[in-house]
């Protein structure tokens, strides 16, 4: 007798390819969001550092909101808010927008910390050597500040990479969503989740170790 037809197929080699493609999409959305978020975050951090009343009154609390509301709520809110003001965004774009702002809110604090780490006497020295404000920022504050907070920035970037998994709630098929789809079909959650977890771990662990070593080396 023929075996009964099953709706479930076992895990195949082609599924591994499917997961790899999804992992690529995770990398793509993370890299894009981290890049945009870092640029924005440094600008915001500079505004907070310069501390005009407008920045302290509006920008600080606004960025604080993005740090105090769960990312998943932000994503759902934005995804449902965009059509209200007439924007039609696909899950990928919505994800990039929110992840970038979220990343910027985190980077802003880090960047401000870096600028504060330079110290006023160093900056006064630069200015009295005849450097303009921008030259001082570009040639003195940027290199020293970057060195001070680079490890924290790596931490933020890795956090955003891991949090990009949440874009799956909007239906964007990144690594975790792809594993969920495969689990539904193959009914082999343990194997597939292990593969997905291994990918995240393989990406995050070496970079975080590298940053920790850097921190230790620079501290001494």
């Amino acid at each position: 007798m023929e075996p009964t037809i099953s709706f479930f197929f076992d895990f195949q080699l082609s599924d591994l390819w499917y997961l790899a493609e999804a992992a690529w999409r995770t990398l793509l959305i993370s890299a894009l969001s981290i890049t945009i978020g870092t640029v924005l975050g440094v600008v915001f951090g500079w505004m907070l550092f310069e501390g005009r009343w407008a920045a302290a009154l509006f920008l600080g609390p606004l960025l604080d909101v993005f740090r105090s509301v769960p990312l998943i709520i932000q994503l759902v809110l934005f995804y449902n808010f965009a059509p209200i003001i007439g924007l039609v965004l696909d899950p990928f774009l919505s994800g990039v927008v929110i992840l970038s702002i979220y990343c910027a809110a985190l980077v802003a604090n880090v960047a401000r910390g870096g600028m504060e780490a330079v110290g006023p006497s160093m900056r006064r020295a630069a200015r009295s050597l005849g450097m303009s404000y921008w030259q001082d920022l570009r040639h003195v504050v940027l290199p020293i500040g970057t060195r001070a907070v680079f490890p924290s920035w790596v931490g933020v970037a890795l956090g955003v990479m891991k949090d990009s998994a949440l874009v799956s709630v909007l239906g964007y098929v990144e690594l975790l969503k792809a594993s969920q789809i495969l689990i539904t079909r193959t009914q082999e959650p343990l194997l597939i989740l292990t593969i997905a977890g291994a990918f995240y771990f393989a990406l995050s662990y070496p970079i975080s170790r590298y940053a920790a070593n850097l921190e230790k080396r620079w501290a001494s």
Partner: protein
Amino acid sequence: MFDYNFHWRPVLKNLPDLLAAGLTTLQVAVLAMIIGVIVGLGLALIRLHMRGPLRWFASAWVELARNTPALFQLFFFGFGLGALGVHMTPYAIVLSALSFNCAGYLAENFRGGFQAIPDTQIRAARSLGMTAWQTYTRIIIPQVFRIVYHPLTNQMVWAVLISSLGMLVGFRELSGETQALASRTYRIFEYFAVTAVIYYLIVKIILGASRLLAARLFRY
């Protein structure tokens, strides 16, 4: 543009339900923190003082918790363990995943705290005739607590924020409750906007309470 009519009444009518769910969120976060502190302390001490398999286990725990997405951990405790025959209620899934995550992050904070206390203090305490237990509870832990107080507060906020992932495994905490209510009326934006405000308030209350407590605890 803007032909969307906001309807806040159904949300306001269900506000008591949302606030009750907010208490569930707070409850699961606090419980996860308590478990996380105890387990994290154990993990940190094992990583500092032991060798062999127990140490590998502790290191694996910490690195896995820190280098994979929280959502992945939640899925693993939900679906992955389900495949092994361990079936848990949504509450237990969220609590265990959250505790796992918190313990991993806190262990690293505690380790940093312990390393910041010079060895000479232990030796001084021991040569005064204190037992190892007395040394830890009266000399080391109070100082470590002061160092990790701020990271602990951040972790508490973080626990509240990632408990929102519970809605993806069917747990009716604040986000899950919001989703259930929103899908009944299709007022998704309004519901999640109110929920975002509630989360913001919860986070602010935690930070405020922490600051008050710090002023009381660290007077000297």
